[in-house]
């Protein structure tokens, strides 16, 4: 099973689309709302070296933004 984490903020459209994409492809994920979870925010910044959301961590591979081809490659979806 792939280990997928997604760092989000509440109204972020790309976060919503990324989660919808995971759901459609039956990918389980753990979500961290970095607007309230300070520890997760620090983790996200240290992993991705930047502050924009979403950040997606697939088996320690870090993807910034809803980058579909990178997600597909990391999850071997296509």
């Amino acid at each position, binding site marked *: 099973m792939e280990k997928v984490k997604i760092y989000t903020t509440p109204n972020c459209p790309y976060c*919503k*689309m990324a989660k919808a994409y995971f759901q459609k492809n039956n990918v389980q994920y753990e979500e961290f709302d970095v607007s309230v979870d300070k520890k997760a925010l620090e983790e996200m910044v240290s992993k991705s070296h930047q*502050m924009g959301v979403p950040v997606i961590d697939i088996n320690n591979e870090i993807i910034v933004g*809803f980058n579909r*081809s990178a997600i597909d490659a990391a999850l071997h979806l296509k």
Partner: protein
Amino acid sequence: MFDLVIIGGGPAGVAGAIYAERKKINYLMIADSIGGQSIVSAKIENWIGLPNISGADLAITLENHLELIGVNKSIGEKVLSIEKKNNFFQIQTDKGKKYESRYLLIATGSHPRKMNVKGEDDFEGRGIFHCATCDAPLLKNKTVAIIGGGNAGLEAAIDLLAYASKIYILEYTDSLKGDAVTQEKLNNNSKVQIITQAKVIEVLGDKFVSGLKYEDLKNKNVVKEIKVDGIFVAIGVVPSSDLVKNFVKLNERGEIIVDHQTYQSSDPAIFAAGDVCDSLYQQNNIAVGDAIKAVLSIYNRIK
């Protein structure tokens, strides 16, 4: 060899693909992502038939429509270049693939304009942001600068009001350009400071943004510096017409010039629709209509 390749996944590309499917054209749609520029809108209230939908939900709805009718598509693939051969085009993508097509529908929309100043690329994502809806919550109790006093900039400021402790709005001309109603909301807020006739010249920082320098155009171009933790850039958009700029006529803004009955460009095999073409109005609903006219025109040529 396809008869038609549609490039782009905004409302224009999606509408074009749906009509190509219905007309049983031998086609392929290639798009980096689905939804277009209004993905970032929290609320779209003018999409006909759905009086209130978020940009993200619109994107999901559009993709569902493509899937429901079995559109031939490759999403998450980006076109890198197009070569013109004798009587077809060769399209190269970031997946290392090559596609061939007799006709093209360019529906690539537009992308945010850059400031083109020192430090801008270095701090992308490290304090320079483009999506206020996404990233405003990360600037709780921070000082931010919004570059651009048009509607996009003012709406970013509204998103930031709930979080930032101080908001500068830097506008190049002598007054804000956004809607009066939005301006009023911001004028009455003590957090907001509007600086007009300001030309940003450098983004400052170490690991993350710590400030910016601008020329004060109303004061002999004196260079001033402000300390900020975040910068939102909202200075308009540039049509994404680079892929075909060597084959078609563009206007002075870089938009593809088309005939507005057929949406054919100066190259008879290249059509364009939506924000990348020289439509007078940049609207989702209009982009849809443009693309449908283009695909029907192409259909009439190949049937």
